[in-house]
């Protein structure tokens, strides 16, 4: 089994096409939103249209989509029924994410057991479509769940009751130590809006603030965060092994200004706002993340999450588009091809690994050696 590449997928189309059509930037610093080309403005509920979408994703080497489990008054829904019907074991599958911290229905403590049952039921309805036959649920913003340990226990108990064997629970978190202690199986790098992995490039001075207040400067400098794409992804991948069991989340771009009309947007900038995706760096981001996941996770637990297949409203989509043609899509396809070729051809004849206590001892010895040499690790 190779590293599984899972792309976040929004099932809220055609509804979101009108939102995309209506989105207007309120600052010249905002990169343009894009518009679909090859696949058109599809309807995720129509199997003929969603079949083309999934086919194109599979052709790029993507193993499955991550769809959101959204709360409703009656329970939860994914909107992925048509997609699930097309999934085939070993070829294409589904995993799930739940924005637990933003789920207002979870706030009612007494209702949690019932909500957990409903959430797991929404997943169980799509059981034949699970990637590799195993249910995987990503919990975004787990810290906002209230009693996290209780939430994890509820979900696990309901999954067991529903016969969801091999249930894997991932927390969207930059470090795994605390969430694994709470019962999660692993962590996943948070999205760009939830984790500014380096300091923002815009730090308004007092004078800037006055000029903004006087209408002489663009107010987004004060309300939004701008980052250099290159530094942002560099800082996510440096010394990764020190963060524990955390799956990489890779993305070509991100600017969520459409969802923040009153400020608070996160904008990753590639040089200038109008430059588009840094395809070279994005390709390497994907390629190196896959290689890293292969080296650092056990067989059957190797994942890289791609943000996103079709999050057009935050600019992270890799689908073919009017402004980029199929270049971003092709970048992902090439990066996956390269990484998989490397993994296949380099072989996996690893030697026995040292046990955890020896590895810890080695780390301590090296740190002591740094100190003895008068240097810092």
């Amino acid at each position: 089994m190779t590293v599984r590449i899972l792309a976040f997928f929004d099932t809220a189309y055609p509804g979101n096409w009108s939102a995309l059509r209506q989105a207007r930037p309120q600052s010249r610093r905002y990169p343009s939103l894009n518009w679909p080309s090859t696949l058109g403005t599809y309807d995720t509920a129509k199997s003929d249209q969603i079949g083309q979408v999934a086919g194109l994703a599979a052709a790029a080497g993507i193993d499955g989509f991550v769809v959101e489990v959204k709360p409703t008054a009656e329970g939860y829904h994914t909107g992925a029924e048509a997609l699930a019907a097309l999934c085939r074991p070993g070829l294409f599958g589904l995993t799930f994410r739940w924005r637990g911290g933003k789920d207002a229905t979870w706030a009612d403590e007494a209702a949690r057991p019932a909500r957990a049952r409903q959430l797991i039921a929404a997943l169980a309805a799509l059981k034949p479509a699970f990637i590799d036959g195993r249910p995987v649920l990503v919990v975004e913003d787990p810290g906002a769940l209230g009693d996290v340990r209780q939430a994890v226990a509820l979900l696990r108990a309901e999954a067991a009751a529903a016969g969801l064997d091999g249930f894997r629970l991932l927390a969207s978190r930059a470090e795994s130590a605390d969430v694994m202690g709470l019962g999660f199986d692993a962590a996943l790098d948070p999205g760009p809006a939830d984790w500014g992995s380096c300091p923002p490039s815009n730090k308004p001075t007092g004078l800037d603030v006055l000029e903004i207040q006087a209408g002489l400067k663009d107010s987004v400098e004060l309300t939004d965060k701008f980052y250099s794409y290159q530094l942002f992804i560099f800082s996510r991948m440096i010394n990764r092994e020190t963060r524990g069991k955390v799956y990489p989340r890779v993305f070509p771009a991100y600017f969520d200004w459409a969802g923040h009309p009153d400020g608070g947007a996160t904008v990753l900038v590639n040089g200038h706002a109008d430059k588009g995706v840094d395809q070279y760096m994005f390709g390497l981001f994907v390629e190196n993340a896959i290689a890293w996941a292969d080296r650092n996770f056990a067989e059957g637990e190797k994942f890289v999450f791609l943000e996103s297949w079709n999050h057009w409203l935050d600019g992270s989509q890799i689908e073919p588009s009017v402004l980029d043609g199929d270049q971003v899509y092709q970048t992902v396809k090439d990066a996956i091809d390269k990484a998989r070729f490397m993994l296949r051809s380099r072989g996996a004849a690893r030697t026995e690994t040292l046990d955890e206590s020896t590895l810890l001892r080695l780390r301590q010895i090296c740190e002591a050696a740094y100190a003895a040499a008068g240097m810092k690790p």
Partner: protein
Amino acid sequence: MLAGLALLPDGRQQRLVLRFGAGAFRDDEVFDSANCPPARYLIEVGRRLLEIAPNARRLMIANPLLPLSPEQLAGWIPPVLAVPVIVADAKGFPLAYCLPRWMVEEEERFLLLLSTCDVGLDQRLLGLVGGCEAGVVGVPKLDIGEFPPASTTGWFMGRGRQEMLRTCTIAALRAIQKQKAWRDLPFAAYLPYHAGSLLMLNLAARQVPNGFFSKEVICASYRDIVETCPGPLEPLPLRMPWLPRDNSVGELEYLAHAFERLGPEVRESHFFGFLRYSRIYNRTPFHLIDQMKFALGHSMRHEADTVHGGTPFARAKADLPVRPLKLLFHLAGGWKLKSYRLDKAAAMFMALKSFGCELTVIDRPDLERFGARSVSSDDTAFLTAEVRAHHIFIGVDSFPHHFVRHALGWPTVALFANTKPCNSDARENPDYRALVGALPCNPCGAEQFCPMTGREDCDNFAQPHQVVAAILEMARAVYGFTEAS
């Protein structure tokens, strides 16, 4: 993107489009090799066209440097079909070559001598090789302009490199004119440096017995490499020192001067293929040995053709007592970002000393104070002797690593940082490990300063404890070493 058109006897056309492959080996992909001139791709398109259209009479092949489509080629089919014809832009940059089938089938290797950037030279070459007057058809409305140093399709072919291609074509024209038996002249791979590239070339040549080349131009000071790791290519020594790594001499200035230095007798009695980079070598996932194999003539159509899929060239290990574990390090690459940082090396050495290891380091006397014996290595015989006196070699991405692993087959831990392991590592085995970080900027192409941090070292090297762990794991697996014994 490469394009071709087979012109069939009944007037129909068979169209071909190939993308540079990234490791999936699909039917519509072509192997991506940096080490061959653009004309090598012209040959490959010709081979593929004859595969899909075995009864083609003529082949129209786009200049590999240009992103053309078969539809564009179809609009340029020359009216005269009996002789080779080059379609050129307004200023004489070749757009496409329309060649009789026999020329592709029987004179394939001479097509390697096409400059692909000078229509006049290529017209003369095709005329001499074909024994006829080659034609030129102009497309006056199209002006390619100055070809950029790096193109979107991965070509690394600025003005200076084009000059080198012209030089090889001019030399070929002279050789044909001077030598009656020019068809029997040997082809020489023009790749005088660096040591690692030369080693890869020799290893590749062993696997391409019927390639284009029978000789190789090498810096005379690298002769020991060829002697220690011989291949079927006969060396043509170049009496010049190798190109310094400090950029004090421009690469193309060196290459052109070195070509002159070969002397008229050598130049006029050989054909030369320019095998230094024409494409960006680290954009492809393929090993340099495989990239060389393609340059030498192998089509590299299947994954099984690549060296990673095969067994190691050599396999050996130390015949020494298990303790003390003797380790040989090479931590200084050809440029600063390839070198393992002093403080990390110090920590690593002190940790290894605590396990009773004996350490030797090549060309890093600054590490003596951390318990290592420092040696200088300037030839392969000395390096070989040192390697054989140690259990494991630990080296950065530089010639000693390639030599120790690929030529000697010694247990090796490789340390990569801002270069991609896949381009020059070996197959993972209990006696081979390649360590690298996860940074998305790898490979950056920088040499002296990190483009991200501005520092003179690369953060993508493995941490000291990771290197120590890899060494101890290998020592256990290969020699039965235990830390406590």
